[in-house]
């Protein structure tokens, strides 16, 4: 499943995922955003994996926010933008 969301005034966020037993699996976030340090992308993918497929935007965004190290910098997107993109992939 595949979702795309262009953040207004920001960058493109893309999510590819599968659903297994009602939960998100094989989650892959990509896009033309900027993220420091770059390894945080793996943490975001891991944080989304296992979330229930019916999780709402707030829960998805909270899961992304919670995995970010203190020095993480997101430029052109946000945990909320990832949540919107995940929802788009699911619908």
């Amino acid at each position, binding site marked *: 499943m595949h979702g*795309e*969301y*262009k953040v*207004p*005034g*920001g*960058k*493109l966020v*893309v999510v*590819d995922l599968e659903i297994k037993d009602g939960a998100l699996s094989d989650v*892959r*976030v*990509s*896009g*033309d*955003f*900027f*993220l*420091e*340090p*770059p390894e945080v*992308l793996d943490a975001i993918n891991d944080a989304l994996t296992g979330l229930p497929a019916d999780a709402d935007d707030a829960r998805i965004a909270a899961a992304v926010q919670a995995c970010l190290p203190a020095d993480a*910098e997101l*430029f*052109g997107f946000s945990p909320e933008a990832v949540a919107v993109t995940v929802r788009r992939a699911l619908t």
Partner: protein
Amino acid sequence: MSERTQWNDYQWELLHGAPQSPELHMALDAVITDEVGAGLRPPTLRIWEWSQPAVIIGRFQSLKNEVDPQGAARHGVKVVRRVSGGGAMFVEPGNTITYSLSVPQALVQGMSFQQSYEYLDAWVIQALHDLGIKAWYQPLNDIASESGKIGGAAQARRAGAVLHHVTMSYDIDAEKMVQVLRIGREKLSDKGTTSAKKRVDPLRSQTGLERDVIIERMLQTFRGLASLTPIPLSQATLEKAQTQARDKFSTPEWTAQVP
């Protein structure tokens, strides 16, 4: 928090050598920026020359979402992934002006990412104005003009240093570009256009000047900010970059890291 430094606190070095392969350019950005971060070299402006057509995708982009492999193969285009985020670009030898600034973190100390993008390209906007182009910085990371996008910037932060690189279109083959890159409608949804071909307006049509004349004018503008000494690429730096090009930037593990 330490003090922010100024452009003319440094004796800058200029690297503008022979055409290099796409994977070597990726590696040179990493190696030179790390040398600046380690205090082994002063801040460096590097002008790129390409030995072959290339697609350079951003650090976080999906390879298969961005590149049409058949189109790339048909046109002999090498696909590489760079160390910075941002979007895919298509280059052919002589049809872009691409440059990298490798600077100490101190030069942008205390700035937001947005501020640092604008700050590090202010001299280019000035140079474009001097060439008669009404250009401006379009957040987040575009150089824009009245008749379209001219180029885009990307940054990567690496231990003590910032890599800021920019590609501006000099004379793009828009038809070939759309055969090589996949540019979806969602990406263009807030750009006020539905065609990627219409988004890029090259410097050649706006200035009527040769590419090397534009580069020379840019360097003149830069020298108004700080001293800039042309140097050859050292053998040691070249060898480090060749190693990284071979062991990292030309491998499928890196290029398809986001598949």
